[in-house]
């Protein structure tokens, strides 16, 4: 038997690092650390795949997988403690950028320093080929390779949740089905604010801004800029390797003001600092939010728990230009399965075996049927189309979302070209992807502090003088880039509207 599998839960193997090679028939036990899904049957689906592996390929290769579940809020603490003391699990669910500051570093440096391995060393190109290019190229631009196997889509295809009952109570008429304009959006937000629906008082739009340091907030201001014509977000890396910050610019600011700034200034929001981004789900489920910018996975939970009619509506955009809606809006964060290096206690070989299994097209598809979550795997999408989906997915509208995700992913190529045409000095990866990531990872938890602080300040003071706030925050960020050893900052991009934003249709 494997070390630890004979234990009645009273502690695993004597190495304590979760990995044992030995036992009479040479079984390697590996640990995967995850947090529980808040909806069912996702957890069951997860367990099933692990079981399948243990019985099938695992048994053949002498690998046994054990799952360890951590409360979500404590997961990161635990993983970091384990990494810091060189006894990391073999695999963990992570937001990769939270564990290592990759900014400005090339692959060989990262390979040497980061706690996790490049999964592309362990899998075939073929296997990787099943994933949507965007998720991979995203990683490639940051890390120079793929460090985590994506399994929940990081692309949030412009999802805006609508409390239909509140909409109707506000007498707003038809629910929008096509892209709509900022003006219409703001009118709706104002109209919804304060109506009563289903016994709840409703706020116009939900916005979660708690926690100045959360790394989510480094994405938050930059990602909605797309809806106003900025295709870059916070900034990019130039061909001369210097970083350019574009956050403090007209399109970004405009998008911010329309989506959140004005509602904040007018009090058409819920209490923004009460929640972080993820927590805004709760008041939406409670029926207290009319419109909510949120991620694809929320849908499943809303479907299971909300007691009112809700729908997903298209994103409002500048002038109602539907093109803008397809790309990212909302703070999408990619969840990956990360395999840890032997130096910090992992067993990447065995881990990779499991990851290959868990995240191949077939099993992603299998899991999709139990979770109804958008997944970044186009092979799976093909299976969905060819083999159909489960009743659960049908009920929760997972297939539609997947279709939207697929569409968004497939438009990625054209967006890429548009970016390159707008910013001729932008650096591109060998695969031709423009590098639109600026350092916002770990040591720059401080970036989160700067941007989160800015957002909190704006929420606190009713969005007063956002331009200055954006400019100042960008300046702080720039300073961090300057101070960091590995990165250089393009000083000429410091300040508002520098460089000149060049907006326009794709």
């Amino acid at each position: 038997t494997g070390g630890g599998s004979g234990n009645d839960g009273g502690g695993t193997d004597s190495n304590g690092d979760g990995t044992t090679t030995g036992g009479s028939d040479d079984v390697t036990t590996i640990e995967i650390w995850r947090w529980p899904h808040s909806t069912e049957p996702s957890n069951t689906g997860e367990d099933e795949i692990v079981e399948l592996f243990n019985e099938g390929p695992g048994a053949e290769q002498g690998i046994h997988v054990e799952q360890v579940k951590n409360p979500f809020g404590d997961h990161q603490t635990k993983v970091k403690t384990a990494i810091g003391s060189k006894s990391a699990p073999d695999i963990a669910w992570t937001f990769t950028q939270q564990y290592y500051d990759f900014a400005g570093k090339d692959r060989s440096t990262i390979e040497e320093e980061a706690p996790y391995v490049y999964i592309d060393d362990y899998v075939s190109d073929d296997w990787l080929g099943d994933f949507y290019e965007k998720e991979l190229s995203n990683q490639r631009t940051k890390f120079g390779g793929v460090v985590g196997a994506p399994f929940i889509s990081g692309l949030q295809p412009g999802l805006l949740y609508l409390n239909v009952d509140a909409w109707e109570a506000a007498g707003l008429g038809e629910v929008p089905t096509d892209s709509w304009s900022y003006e219409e959006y703001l009118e709706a937000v104002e109209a919804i604010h304060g109506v009563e629906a289903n016994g709840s008082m409703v706020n116009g739009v939900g916005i979660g801004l708690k926690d100045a340091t959360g790394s989510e907030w480094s994405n938050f201001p930059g990602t909605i800029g797309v809806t106003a014509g900025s295709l870059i977000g916070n900034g990019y890396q130039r061909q001369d390797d210097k970083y350019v910050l574009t956050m403090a610019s007209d399109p970004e600011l405009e998008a911010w003001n329309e989506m959140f700034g004005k509602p904040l200034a007018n009090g058409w929001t819920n209490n923004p600092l009460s929640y972080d981004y993820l927590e805004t789900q709760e008041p939406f489920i409670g029926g207290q939010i009319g419109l909510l910018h949120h991620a694809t996975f929320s849908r499943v939970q809303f479907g299971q728990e909300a007691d009112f009619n809700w729908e997903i509506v298209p994103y409002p955009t500048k002038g109602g230009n539907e093109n803008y809606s397809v790309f990212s809006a909302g703070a999408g964060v990619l969840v990956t399965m990360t395999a840890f290096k032997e130096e910090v206690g992992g067993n990447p070989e065995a881990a990779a075996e499991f990851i290959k299994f868990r995240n191949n097209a077939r099993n992603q598809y299998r899991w999709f049927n139990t979770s109804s979550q958008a997944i970044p795997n186009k092979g799976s999408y093909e299976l969905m189309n060819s083999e159909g989906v489960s009743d659960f997915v049908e009920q929760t509208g997972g297939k539609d979302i997947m279709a939207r995700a697929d569409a968004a992913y497939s438009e990625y190529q054209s967006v890429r070209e548009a970016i390159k045409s707008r910013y001729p000095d932008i650096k591109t990866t060998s695969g031709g992807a423009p590098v639109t990531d600026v350092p916002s990872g770990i040591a720059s938890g401080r970036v989160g502090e700067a941007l989160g602080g800015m957002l909190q300040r704006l929420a606190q003071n009713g969005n007063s003088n956002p331009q200055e706030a954006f400019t100042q925050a960008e300046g702080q960020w720039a300073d961090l880039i300057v101070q960091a050893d590995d990165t250089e900052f393009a000083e000429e991009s410091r300040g508002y509207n520098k460089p000149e934003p060049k907006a326009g249709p794709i």
Partner: protein
Amino acid sequence: MTSDSEQESAIYASERSDTRSFSLDSLSLSQQEFIEGWLFVLPKIAILLFVIGFPMAFGIYLSFTESTLLNLPGEFVGLENYQWLVNYPVWWTSVKNVLIMSAVKIPTNIFFSFTAALLLREKLKGSNLYRIAFIVPVAGPPVIWAIVWRLMLFSNEGGIANAILLELGAISQYIPFLTNVTYALPSVIMSQIWSFGLSMLIYMAALSGLPSSVMESASMDGANKYQKVRYIIWPLMKPTTLFLVVIQLIEVTKVGFASVFVMTGGGPLNSTMVPSFLVYELAFRYNEFGHASAVAVGMFLITAFIALVLYKPLQSNAEYYQ
């Protein structure tokens, strides 16, 4: 001492040791006591050294290094982290917040616990229910206290407290208790001042030790209720009060962690940051272990300083209790 008797005692000693497998009898009495003493404290010292000796030394060492999650310990940088600390505004915010917390929490805690103990001493009907009500918050983990109060103040539009206040007509508009830089710290503190149950019990114990003849003397001397409390009971409770102040000064930092961790995450805008949470954040959010260690050492020094400063008056006031 004659050589004869020396011999005799040596013989005596060897006789005794013959009958036992091991004997300390050849040592002098104080040598024996030395060995016995260390044998007695050995298990504790061993646990202490084993469990935290190394980690503690390592932690202190980290504060002199530039360490990150993946680089433990990192390069030795001398006092750089402390220099950084002194110039780090969030650290000072956190220190200021702890001071404010103490400045509010401790007097209110003393006030509530003292008055409650005084009133419960009057053997009112239902005293036991009150007592249970006051004890509940301190019996369980601080985490629970924080969760429960977060629910009161926080989730949902302004929290249950708001809903109730609104319902009662006490307010006309939601108060953003935990989400406004003005209200957040007061709210966090407010949620904590109800955990005075242990202090109350300690006051009750002290009050029951109050010599009744002194109280009776005061009666004979013609002191009225207020005067008895003001001039007799309260001054006599001084050692207890001081003791409680010290306990809480040390405790504030710990309880502060749970509240801040659960309720505000230090925000908004660091307005509720406390040193213990700052350590956590630096280490586990920013991965800055060197900085985190410096903060931890700073915290240790502050706590030790407080304890040292207050130890003397505490001890010298113990005399009332003889």
